[in-house]
Each structure stands twice: as structure tokens, then as C-alpha cells.
């Protein structure tokens, strides 16, 4: 069992927790993820590591309540325990040789993007961050991003805060104005990452994305997280859990990845409703 050391609601649907897992805290690097089960018989879900504290053995996770498992996790309080917590999994973000980076975060993906931005800042790189949300109610981690960014642009889809529009707008403006980056790293919904890649491509700026497919074991065993890369005209299958989660954005077949992400949509809707009802009755 793994103890919940702290819990904080960042917005009505996004929660931050610290879980006591010293071995994971000791090893995790930005870009890596963990898999957890809330309780016995629970589903295994992957979540990116949002930060660690080696002294206390705490691993920070930030999750959006989107389905049954995250709903059950959100119902847990500090001091309670969860059944399983394993990691760190996947490859860490490659930081070598990068002097200037643009971090593009969308929605809860900002939670994944933050530790990467922090790492680049710590390594002395110039960090430009663009973070986007549907509206001001869903805004998270603004201060944290500001602290590690040389420049921060906040976007909202409805214009309720920051600039009106999506994250590709300021990115395109900067690139058109001749600004260059050693890397643009996009983390968020599939559609946002796809359009970030399309925005970058004409300018030839290197672009990477962090994929978050459905997975079970996280060690390469099930192959459920497979995605297709287009490499030199060949279609190559990769496993996000061991080969990723970060990939060259220009190679990823986003349409296929987004389609695979919706495989259990019907089931998930149903399970989420059931779980909500269960808690209402209790």
C-alpha cells in the first residue's frame, strides 16, 4: 500500500496528490510516468510524474477526473492509501544540447509539461512556455510556470483569461517573426499536439510530443500502447511505455493514436456514471 501524503484541488476537476513511494522518488526524471491502482481489483492507469521530493520520498501526481478510476482516486484523502504505485516508467525527456526550448502545454497536460520546463530551466536553457486552457476556471500551475519561464503566454479558448485562442496562435507568431528554438515540446490532448506539429513543420523547428495512450503493464508486455511512426516512408510500430512516451512529432500518426484512445469510450462513460451513482448513494 502507498500512502497519500497530501492532496490539493487545483481546479474543480484537476487534483494534485503526493504519494509516498521513496524508490520512485529516488529515480524519477522529468518526462517519466508511473502506473497506479487505487484499490484491489482496480484498473491500472498511467500518470506522468509531476515532481518528486527525494528527502520525503514523495512523488507528485496531477490528474483530471475523467473516468471511473480518476473519480475513485479523487475521493481519496491525505492519510489514506492506494493499492499500487509502480515506476518510474518510460524514458526521461532528452535535454542534451538544448539551449532554447518552447514548452507547449494544453489543459491537464500542463502538469506533465511543468517538470520538464523546470528541468530545462535548472539546466540553464531559455524557456518559453505557452499554456492553454478551455477557460479561466480550468487554469492550473500559472505561478509555477512563471517561476521557471523566461517568457510565459497563457491562452484560453474562450478568452476568459490571458489571450484568446489556442496555443498554436502565439507559437506561429513567434516562428513567423523569426524566433528559433532548439526544441518545441508539446504535451496535451492529441488534437493539440497534432496541430502544434503542423504549425512547427513549415519552419523546420524540431518538435516532440508526449503521448498518453491506453496501457496496462507499462513494461512493454501488453503492446496496448502501440502507436505508428512514419519513418522514411515506412510505418514502424513503437510502444509508448518503453520507447516513449516522447516521440518525434513529425513521425507520429496522430489520427490513429486518437482513434485508439477512444476504443473503450462507451464502456468508460458507463463505468463513470456507475461510479458516480455509487458515491451519491453512499
Amino acid at each position, binding site marked *: 500500500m502507498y500512502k497519500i501524503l497530501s492532496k490539493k484541488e487545483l481546479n474543480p476537476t484537476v487534483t494534485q496528490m503526493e504519494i509516498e513511494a521513496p524508490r520512485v522518488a529516488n529515480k524519477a526524471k522529468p518526462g517519466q510516468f508511473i502506473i497506479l491502482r487505487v484499490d484491489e*481489483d482496480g484498473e491500472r492507469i498511467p500518470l506522468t510524474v509531476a515532481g518528486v521530493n527525494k528527502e520525503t520520498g514523495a512523488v507528485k501526481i496531477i490528474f483530471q477526473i475523467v473516468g471511473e478510476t480518476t473519480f475513485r482516486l479523487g475521493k481519496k484523502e491525505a492519510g489514506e492509501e492506494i493499492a499500487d504505485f509502480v515506476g*518510474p516508467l518510460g524514458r526521461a525527456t532528452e535535454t542534451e544540447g538544448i539551449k532554447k526550448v518552447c514548452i507547449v502545454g494544453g489543459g491537464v497536460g500542463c502538469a506533465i509539461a511543468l517538470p520538464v520546463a523546470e528541468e530545462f530551466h535548472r539546466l540553464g536553457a531559455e524557456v518559453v512556455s505557452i499554456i492553454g486552457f478551455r477557460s479561466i476556471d480550468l487554469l492550473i500551475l500559472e505561478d509555477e510556470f512563471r517561476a521557471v519561464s523566461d517568457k510565459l503566454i497563457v491562452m484560453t479558448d474562450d478568452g476568459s483569461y490571458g489571450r484568446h485562442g489556442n496555443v498554436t496562435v502565439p507559437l506561429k507568431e513567434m516562428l513567423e517573426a523569426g524566433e528559433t528554438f532548439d526544441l518545441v515540446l508539446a504535451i496535451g490532448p492529441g488534437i493539440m499536439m497534432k496541430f502544434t506539429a503542423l504549425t512547427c513543420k513549415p519552419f523546420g523547428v524540431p518538435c516532440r510530443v508526449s503521448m498518453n495512450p491506453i496501457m496496462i503493464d507499462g513494461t*512493454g*508486455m*501488453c503492446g*496496448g500502447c502501440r502507436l505508428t511512426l512514419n519513418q522514411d516512408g515506412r510505418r514502424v510500430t513503437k510502444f509508448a511505455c518503453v520507447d516513449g512516451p516522447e516521440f518525434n512529432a513529425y513521425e507520429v500518426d496522430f489520427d490513429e493514436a486518437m482513434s485508439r484512445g477512444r476504443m473503450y469510450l462507451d464502456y468508460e462513460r458507463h463505468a463513470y456514471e456507475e461510479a458516480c451513482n455509487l458515491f451519491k448513494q453512499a
Partner: protein
Amino acid sequence: MALNPKKHEMPTQAPEVRAHNFKEVALGYTRQLADEEAARCLNCKNKPCVAGCPVNIDIPGFITKIKEGDLEGAYQVINKTSSLPAVCGRVCPQETQCESKCTMGVRFEPVGIGRLERYVADWHNENAKEAAKAPASNGHRVAIVGSGPSGLTCAGDLAKKGYKVSVFEALHKAGGVLVYGIPEFRLPKAIVAKEVETLKELGVDVETNVVIGRTLTIDELFEQGFEAVFIGSGAGLPNFLNIPGESLKGVYSANEFLTRSNLMKAYEADPRTPIMKGGKVIVVGGGNVAMDAARTALRLGAEEVSIVYRRSMEELPARREEVEHAVEEGIVFRLLQNPVEILGFKNPDNPRDERNGFVRGMRVIKMELGEPDEKGRRRPIEIPGSEYEIEADTVVIAIGTSPNPLIKDTTEGLEVNRHGGIVINEEGLTSREAVFAGGDAVTGAATVISAMGAGKVAAAAIDKYLSEK
């Protein structure tokens, strides 16, 4: 008394009943059947059966104890060399091992050694009162990577000699392929749990949720005071066909399909982990895993399940008994055909149609058998122009697995072959000092019992290495 020329059949659930439940198919011998089967053993002097067993169980020895009515004694004979008798009695391919060497088998059917082993182990698990006792510690610490058959065997043998053993498992439950791969109806999970419990009674620590190569590396295990390491991490990486359509929704690797059903209990009435069920299911492959996947799909409620295999019935690599069970249950065998493409649904008028991107069928090509290959199996050859389509809602790819590269990639100086298997010598030693390996991580996908045999060899070598150190 005239000896029965035939093996006593083991009672099973009727095919039409078992096709709709996940309870064990074979029900095991009764006391009377076990006594009658034991009586068929000639107790011959040269004991050829023992040489046919990868862990060298004293087979005539334990059968003699059954004849004497001493079932606990029989268990103790098996337990001397095998750590997982209730498992082996169920999943070993006895027909190609011990039973293939049986003297009775020269003229009649061989003795049902596997069925007797299972009977004895089950009797012990139901009736034994005393917990296994941890022997006095010899002070040496050994780390085992992976809690599958090779790891559990290696752990058991070392614990019995007084070593302080820690087993590290990546998943949340111990047992490896015995819990995520082999289905409940062939190997009840309670039996695996019981075997793991017995190891814990012997003093073995089992730590789940530790991925060696990520959470800890092999080198860090030595830094933590372990004096030897055994790698039994299995062949965890599923192979795909590399044909168009393999990433459609509804296409699974056998590992994923079976893991969802077995480990994550998707077969239960109200599962928390989803699985696609119902409709028409095609399983590609002809091994035990393909049979397991097909029979699982049937039990999950598929209306039709078929196996697509590129050779004929003769060449199916699965155990005969599993194939027979599958046929009895109504699995359709589409032999001498090979998938060319998996076909997906696409509504040209509506890109938002929820069915878009799901499997709708498979295009296959007919095959014929040509000259035997280097292994003596006849090579399948495509018949040009023979392609046709089969309907399907779910496709399961069961064409084997490769060793997982996680440990290789994070352990300097660990040599692997071109298939990714860890290179070892005859004692299980790798290219790294004090690091041993065995099972599928070395050989690629093979059987439970060969992995156990490898765990045993390595345990003996680790004992020798640490006692001479």
C-alpha cells in the same frame, strides 16, 4: 491383476458447459482413479521417465508412495525437486517429456504421470496442516528478478538451502505468466497464490511493483547487499504480424487480451478493466497461447471464435490436449491460411461514426505445405490469387513474444544474442559476475517447465558460487 493398457481419463466439465464459464476444465482424479492409475506404473529399474523431466522428479518414487497410500509422502518426494507441483501437474507438456519415455508407453499408453502429480499436489494443498518452515539462514542474500516459473523455482530452491531471497515483480501480483497469461480455466489463480504463499513461509520476500531496469537496476541490487542476482524476467514483448490494420481498435496482442482477462479480471460480471467481447473473434497463431486466447474469447461470450494458422492440424505447436479441448468446445480451425490485412470500418459519409476505426474483418491468403525447413516442419507457401475475406470484430495476435529489453538496456556488460535473449553458460551464468539468468528471458517463449528447469540449474550454480566465495 491385468494392467489397464490405457491411461485413466481425467473427468472434465462437459464442453457445452465449460465453454460458458471460467472454472477449471479438468476436474482431477478421484482417490480411486489415482490408485488405479498408480497401479499401472511398473516401477522399472532404469526409470526413463525421470530423465524426461526437466526438474528430474523421482517419478517412480512418488508413485510408489501413492500405491502405499502415503499421499503426504508422495508430495514430499515431488517437493524435493519441484517447487510448483500443482502448477506442473496442470500445464506441463507431459506427452513430450516424462510420459514420452515411460516403459508402459512402448506397448500401451504411458502412465498418467502429470495427472498423478496434480492429484498428489492438490491433496497436499487441501490436507497438509503444517506450514512450510523457513530453514536456518546462512546469511547470504540473493535477488530474483521476476516471479514467474523460473524465478519462483530458483527462489524456492535457494530458500530451502537457507538463503535470504527477495523476489522483485513488476506487476501488482506475483506469478508472472502463471497469473497474467495462463487462464483460470487451465490454471486456477488460487493454486498459484498458494504456491507463492508456500515460498513466503520458507522466508522468501516477494516485492511487487518493482520494475528492475527502472525502479532499481541490477547494479543497485548489488549495492544494496545482494550477492547474486537471477534474472527470470520472461519474454514479455509481443510480436506483431506487421501487416496493415494491426493498430485498428479491436486488435490485441495475446498478452494484452489475456492480461485483461486474467490479471485484470475482465471476465468478471462487472469488471473495472474493459475488454472487447462478443461478436466474431479471430485468433492468429497455433500455440498454447493461441488456444488460451481462443478459449478465453469463447468464455467471454463470443458468438464465433476461429483460429487462423498457416500450417495444418499436424503442425500445431500447442499441446494435443489443449487442441482437443478447443475442438470439443467448438473453436473453428481455419488452417493453411495466413492473414494479409486486417480490415477496418470506415463510413465514407460520416467521419464521426463511432464505428470508424474498429475491426470489421480480415483478408487471408490460402497456403500449401512445401518442403520441410531446418526444424523439419513443412514450410507454408502462399497460393497466388487465393485471397479472401473473413468477418471479425476482434482479432488477437498470438504469434509469440521476444525477450524484454529493459534489463539489457540498463545493465552494462550483459551480453544478449541477436534475438535479444540473455547469453548464459550451462550453469545459467551470464556475462556478468554473479548475475544468472534463465527461462524465456534467455530462450524466448518456451514452456513453464523448461523455465522451472532453468531456475533450478541457476539455483544450484548460485549455491555453488556463494558457498565457494
